[in-house]
């Protein structure tokens, strides 16, 4: 309807239609007329839409006029007020600064506002969902089979399992590699090696997740099938298709390496040099010093880093959408395709979803679950890291 009104505006402006003609045009002719103006309309114009569009034009025209008057009025009022207030003893700077401070505070409040927005958006729609679908079945159901025709089973457990399984594999890849790389960079590497190796490793963190998704789908998946699939090099036949828990987990692990290594590197560097000197002075080797003095001292911080990486893994979307598959199942085989909470949020909310159906609303409940889990992990991790930092400050 708004499109039609805009189209009419354009037509009038170009002079192909007069205001009177627009009013009298039969609805069927309007569509053709609009098409010739470059305004494509999705459906035929009914008389009702036409009238609505005309009405829209009328009120928006009045609105424009009213807005003009209001702006001029405000400007005049402001000027009058300003002239009246301009006295020698009036400290303009203070008033201006109070106003500026107000602007600054409201900018800072936007952070809170977006959190409130997230929570409200999630809570309202989740409540709506639980009105249509029992919460107990959502949280404890072991089957996920949505069908927009009705009779869906929307149990979160298979999705949570997929999420945790993939995250676990990702952490199994990222934590040892990231931690050992961090130890090497912090304790052994020559300054020059460190100067190029650290940014190189951090490049992995700067690469968008869609790239990892594509890498999983088109490179790692087929490669794993060649190794573990039917008739593969290992002759195991464990893997049916390229998309699997292993594919997504492995690629996600690569993505997380720099998260673990950068944070751990910072944390290891925060361990005071005096502890290292103390241990080396007693005749310990470097590795003994690292394992028995530096790492135990850095442990809380490293745990925090791993928790942050875990929260990242759980919330990751593109890699699992492309690399993990779409089948929601509870299986132990890491070479099976499984799916995750995030992947299902995407699949339930893309396309022309009807927001009132439980199949679409379930995405908000999934989002809520995801938000709560990652928030809890973050709060704990940040708390641990902060306490660790304070200890050595």
């Amino acid at each position: 309807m708004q499109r039609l009104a805009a189209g009419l505006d354009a037509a009038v402006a170009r002079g192909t239609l007069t205001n009177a003609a627009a009013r009298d045009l039969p609805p069927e002719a309007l569509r053709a007329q609009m098409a010739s103006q470059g305004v494509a309309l999705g459906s035929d114009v009914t008389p009702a839409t036409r009238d609505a569009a005309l009405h829209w034009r009328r009120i928006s025209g009045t609105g424009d006029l009213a807005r003009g008057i209001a702006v001029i009025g405000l400007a005049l009022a402001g000027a009058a007020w300003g002239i009246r207030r301009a006295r020698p003893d009036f400290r303009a700077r203070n008033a201006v600064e109070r106003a500026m401070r107000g602007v600054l505070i409201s900018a800072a409040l936007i952070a809170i506002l977006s959190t409130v927005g997230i929570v409200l958006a999630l809570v309202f729609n989740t409540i709506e969902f639980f009105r249509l679908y029992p919460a107990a079945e959502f949280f404890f159901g072991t089957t996920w089979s949505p069908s927009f025709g009705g009779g869906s089973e929307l149990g979160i457990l298979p999705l949570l399992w997929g999420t945790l399984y993939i995250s676990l594999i990702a952490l199994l890849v990222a934590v040892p590699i990231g931690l050992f790389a961090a130890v090497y960079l912090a304790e052994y590497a020559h300054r020059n090696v460190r100067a190029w190796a650290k940014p190189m490793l951090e490049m992995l963190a700067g690469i968008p997740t869609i790239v990892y998704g594509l890498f999983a789908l088109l490179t790692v998946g087929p490669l794993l099938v060649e190794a573990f699939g039917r008739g593969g090099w290992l002759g195991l036949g464990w893997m049916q298709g390229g998309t699997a828990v292993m594919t997504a987990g492995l690629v996600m692990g690569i993505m997380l390496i720099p998260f673990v290594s950068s944070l751990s590197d910072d944390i290891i560097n925060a361990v005071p040099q005096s502890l290292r000197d103390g241990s080396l002075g007693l005749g310990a080797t470097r590795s003994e010093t690292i394992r028995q003095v530096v790492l135990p001292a850095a442990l809380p911080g490293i745990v925090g880093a791993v928790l942050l990486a875990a929260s990242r893994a759980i919330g990751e979307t593109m890699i699992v959408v492309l690399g993990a598959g779409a089948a929601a199942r509870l299986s132990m085989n890491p070479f099976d395709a499984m799916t995750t909470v995030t992947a299902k949020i995407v699949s339930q909310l893309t396309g022309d979803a009807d927001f009132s159906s439980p199949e679409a609303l379930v995405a908000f409940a999934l989002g809520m679950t995801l938000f709560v889990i990652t928030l809890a992990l973050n709060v704990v991790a940040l708390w641990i890291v902060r306490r660790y930092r304070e200890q050595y400050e």
Partner: protein
Amino acid sequence: MNDMRTMDNAVLNETKITARDVHVHYGTTHAIKGVDVDIADRTVTAFIGPSGCGKSTFLRCLNRMNDTIPGAVVTGEIKIDEADIYDPRVDPVQLRAKVGMVFQKPNPFPKSIYDNVAYGPKIHGLARNKAELDEIVEKALRRGAIWDEVKDRLHAPGTGLSGGQQQRLCIARAVATEPEILLMDEPCSALDPIATAQVEELIDELRQNFSVVIVTHSMQQAARVSQRTAFFHLGNLVEYGETGKIFTNPEDSRTESYISGRIG
């Protein structure tokens, strides 16, 4: 002070460390410029001098702690019991077991008191079983003059002790590996006067078993605890001799200026 007592037994002991023409470079900085010194066994030797004079750097040559600093190059000859410690065959790890070190700031590991002391003996394999280890720990803590204060809380964290206790714990930790030489890098600079007095008393006792080399920038401390004193200035060893003589009748004018407070 106790100059008279130090006089009599300082000269008797045989030489433990011999250094000849030692130079240290940090990158482009020439930190030590040809130092020759003989350090006696079972004696407290003090290194004094203004800040940046190289006394700590030289101390760190004696157990090759400079190896851990990138860019540090040591030339010359340092012998402990006739063995050149910069010989390629010498493993610095083994050397450091023989030459213990105590640092400026007390640096107990974030472990229990017991584990702090047991750390060295464990990595060097000095105990065959738990009982022996307990014994070593107790002996070390007694030598560190801290046993009575901590014997009831051996498994409390070492970081919970007071500054002076921490430093004595670190000394106990260093002696637990049965070194022959103890290097101390301004061990009292972070301590209050009472704790300092306790540590100084301990250093005097340690002389019975170890050759102690202490870096200090408190001349009073050097006079109180050492039998021999070496004065460093701008990377040179200016004067080396018996403590009493250095403080009462220095030969070099720079030593005299420093001692009388005109430089440094």
